[in-house]
């Protein structure tokens, strides 16, 4: 996390009225050592991408207050945030990237500046602004669409079967690639016929009340619209440990929005999330996420990028589900008497899990369980990074980054994969054909006996 938070005199909130970030200390902390560049998965496959050092501290230092042009290459960053973990000097690289990307996308809004140029009689400049703006338009629309998966998911879930048929219908995909630049190489994830929230309402919400052990579940978009089984597993596991589960009002965590420079969208969603999660925290709950990118957003990006009442408290009280149980329950003891179903998993730790120090938790937890074999496939990035691998012009890079992981998965004994991140799961499945399980699903399978009874829900 950035140093800026520890230093009262650097507090961006009291200085700037807007959300403008001050990143002076980030620039001061960079020694140019290039360790960040050496771990950047995009830079390793895309020679046109200058790497995190340039995108962050270098570009920041070279840009004057009145300058608006951020280099185009900022949109090449996949926001995997591995640079954050690599930096030996705590440079807030992803914060710098997010801020620069936000400024870049803001600057793509060309209508107002074009009009201003025309009004002041600068016809040529106005025309050139319009020309550049229009040529960016397709990318902007595509990115905004991908960034707002929450909205797409909401509509698709109204008629999930139609949506599933339509989104993976050949001509639709051809058009999406041609018109919007969304790759047709991948299959769209299918929408569940019943969302997690619908299931939650149907079952009548929490099955137990416990003011001493209360968690607020941030399911995010994917567990709600696409993989409610993960959310249900989370609920069953936590209830088996005696937790009262709350499912507060929520929108997108913002992860795909940060990655596409849509800070304004992300802030709108954050306002809802912070308000309802802060309320749950006030009621004695901790916040739990089953998606490691969601927990990353709430913990790190929120306080770095936005100034909202309660945002720091949300960051400080958010945990990944497995992490929370390992901290607060004796999971080893609970698993000691159990046995798995002779299953072998190739486990991939998502980059965002790695940044939260969670990259070993699943392996450590399950390797002692009888009948379960779990093998870490190494520390490479899966390459999809949320929306990155969905962009037609990034697809090949995404697959090139994923090659290491695919090979390691093939080499591992298991014929199925495991990961916490929904888009890493897409990539793992896309590259190997394996089915992918979330650790919570396995945990629920092992811990809870009446599988057949509850899995129908």
């Amino acid at each position, binding site marked *: 996390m950035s140093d800026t938070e520890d230093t009262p005199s650097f507090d961006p909130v009291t200085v700037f009225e807007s959300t403008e970030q001050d990143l002076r200390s980030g620039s*001061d902390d960079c*020694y140019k050592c290039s360790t960040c560049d050496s771990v950047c998965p995009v830079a390793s496959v895309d020679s046109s991408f200058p790497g995190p050092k340039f995108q962050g501290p270098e570009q920041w230092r070279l840009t004057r207050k009145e300058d608006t042009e951020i280099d185009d290459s900022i949109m090449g960053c996949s926001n995997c945030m591995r640079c954050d973990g690599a930096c030996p000097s705590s440079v807030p690289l992803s914060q710098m990237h997010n801020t620069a990307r936000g400024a870049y996308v803001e600057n793509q809004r060309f209508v107002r500046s074009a009009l201003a140029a025309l009004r002041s009689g600068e016809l040529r400049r106005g025309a050139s602004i319009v020309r550049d703006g229009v040529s960016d338009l397709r990318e902007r629309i595509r990115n905004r669409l991908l960034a707002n998966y929450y909205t797409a998911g909401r509509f698709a879930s109204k008629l999930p079967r139609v949506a599933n048929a339509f989104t993976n219908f050949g001509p639709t995909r051809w058009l999406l690639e041609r018109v919007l630049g969304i790759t047709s190489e991948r299959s769209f994830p299918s929408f569940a016929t019943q969302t997690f929230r619908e299931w939650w309402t149907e079952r009548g919400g929490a099955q137990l009340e416990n003011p001493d052990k209360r968690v607020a579940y941030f399911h995010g978009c994917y567990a709600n619209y696409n993989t409610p089984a993960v959310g249900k597993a989370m609920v069953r596991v936590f209830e088996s440990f005696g937790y009262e589960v709350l499912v507060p009002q929520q929108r997108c965590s913002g992860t795909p929005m940060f990655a596409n420079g849509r800070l304004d969208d992300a802030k709108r969603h954050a306002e809802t999330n912070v308000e309802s999660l802060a309320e749950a925290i006030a009621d004695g709950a901790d916040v739990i996420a089953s998606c490691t990118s969601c927990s990353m957003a709430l913990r790190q990006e929120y306080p770095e990028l936005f100034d909202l009442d309660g945002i720091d408290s949300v960051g400080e009280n958010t945990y990944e589900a497995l992490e929370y149980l390992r901290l607060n329950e004796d999971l080893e003891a609970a698993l000691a008497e159990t046995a798995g179903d002779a299953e072998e998993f190739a486990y991939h730790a998502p980059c965002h899990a790695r940044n939260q120090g969670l990259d070993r938790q699943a392996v450590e937890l399950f390797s002692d369980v009888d009948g379960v074999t779990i093998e870490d496939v190494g520390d490479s990035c899966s390459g999809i990074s949320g929306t990155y691998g969905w962009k037609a012009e990034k697809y090949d890079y995404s697959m090139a980054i994923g090659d290491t992981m695919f090979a390691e998965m093939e080499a591992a004994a298991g014929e199925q994969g495991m990961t916490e991140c929904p888009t890493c799961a897409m990539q793992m499945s896309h590259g190997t054909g394996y089915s992918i399980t979330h650790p919570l699903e396995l945990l629920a399978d092992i811990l809870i006996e009446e599988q057949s009874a509850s899995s129908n829900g």
Partner: protein
Amino acid sequence: MDTKTEVLVIGGGSTGCGIARDLAMRGVAVTLVERGTLTDGTTGRMHGLLHSGGRYAVSDRESAAECISENRILREIASHCVEPTGGLFVSKPGDSEEYFERKLAGCSACDIPTELLSAEQARAIEPYLAHDIERAIRVPDAAIDPFRLCVANAAAAREHGARIETHAEVTDLLLDGDRVVGVEITHSNDNGMTGSTERIKATHVVNATGAWAGQIGAMAGVDIAVRPSKGAMTVMNCRQVDTVINRCRPKGDADIIVPHETACILGTTDVEVDDPDAFPETQWEVETMIETLSELVPILDEARTLRSFWGVRPLYEPPETKTSDPTDITRQFFLLDHADRDGLAGMTSIVGGKLTTYRLMAERISDHVCDRIGVDGVCRTADVALPGSENPMHLQEAMESFELRSPIARRSVQRLGSRSSSVLSTSDPNPVICSCEAVTRAELEDAITEVGTDLNAVRIRTRASMGNCQGCFCAHRMAALLHPDHTVETVRTSLEALYEERWRGQRHALWGEQLSQAMLTRYLHATTMNRAQSQTESSPTVAFERFDGGDERGD
């Protein structure tokens, strides 16, 4: 070797280069000699402030009026050297209100436009100003790059036929009775003349050596009582302010912050020294500056410092004045006609003054010299743009034409001005060599073509190695560009000189982040270039070529 010229100018600082340009534009044959690289003396060791005159508006209105008039001229003729930052005079609780009012009145009397700002207005412009500031006066101060300015003057002089000879130290004045008739110089450059001496006969000699003027005078037995005064300046890693910030109080150490390119420069102190080439550079000066200026801009206290450097003001006053405190010595310049003053014909000295008025000083000297040598020439230096400032290039156009990333195109064009096209248009790949300051290979190669193997001269033209790593990642890349045109030996020597210069300033910033940077530099260079020990101590027989082909095992 004997050569001839009409006017010989000693000193490659802003004054000397300004005089060379002025005289050359009047059609006079000029030779300028400089013992080091251009700007090596005081010019390259100042805070880069283009005065509005506000600073002198209370104590010295004549200087103030000269400053504002020259300020306006330089914005026109040297636009690629000037960043119009504006400036603020800021008062804190306890600072004299009466002085504040006198400052306003003085500015108005000298035709310096001002704007009175409340604390809130000032903080809206510069958010990092301390919360307790009381009010501020806005003036048209600006930032100026003294290197670029000086080099542009020299380039203009050369375009008009002048000879500019750097690494040429004056070792004697040639006298004919009571007349100076030329100089003897010793070359130390790399063009094959190293160690050789040259006698240059001249109709008139101009001593523009500033703080070193006394040493030249002594060669002809005349006494020029320059009172050199050192001032410390500290370079911050990034810009805490984008406006020149002055403390609004009568005088004192540590009262100015100048945004300069990617950095901010804190200044300064004022202590008289005996020898402009050897004086103590003391830690208290740096500490005082950071501490005192933190009262105005608190984040300076915890911000990264890159280096500190000291300049020597060429202060002068007529010997009978006997001012005791150097801060009270006038900042005016003096033209010393040695024929009138000492009965020594053929030489004029210029002392005192400041960078902002360099052009005016040059004009006065040139008028005087032309009068002495009987040349009718009119000064045109205020009307003709310097090379680089003729047609500023549009940024968008530059980004498109040179295929550079936006901050790199922007910085390159800001440095090169109207020379951008000719320097950056290349069909070869043009990688960034210095990533801290965004300097590409094409720009460095252009500078090398201009100055040869002196990498410090390349540095001041391009800013390469002046960023936060202080040459850790680019000094050797810069040196590599000298090969194969120059021998490995020359490349090594040049690299060594650049490193030494970079370390010299960093020694005064070895704490916090810059200490970590220095350690990283040290270890990287030790492990990759065997720089952990002195090159002369290491075995001269290490067979580096063994590692090239890989067909032989090591020693």
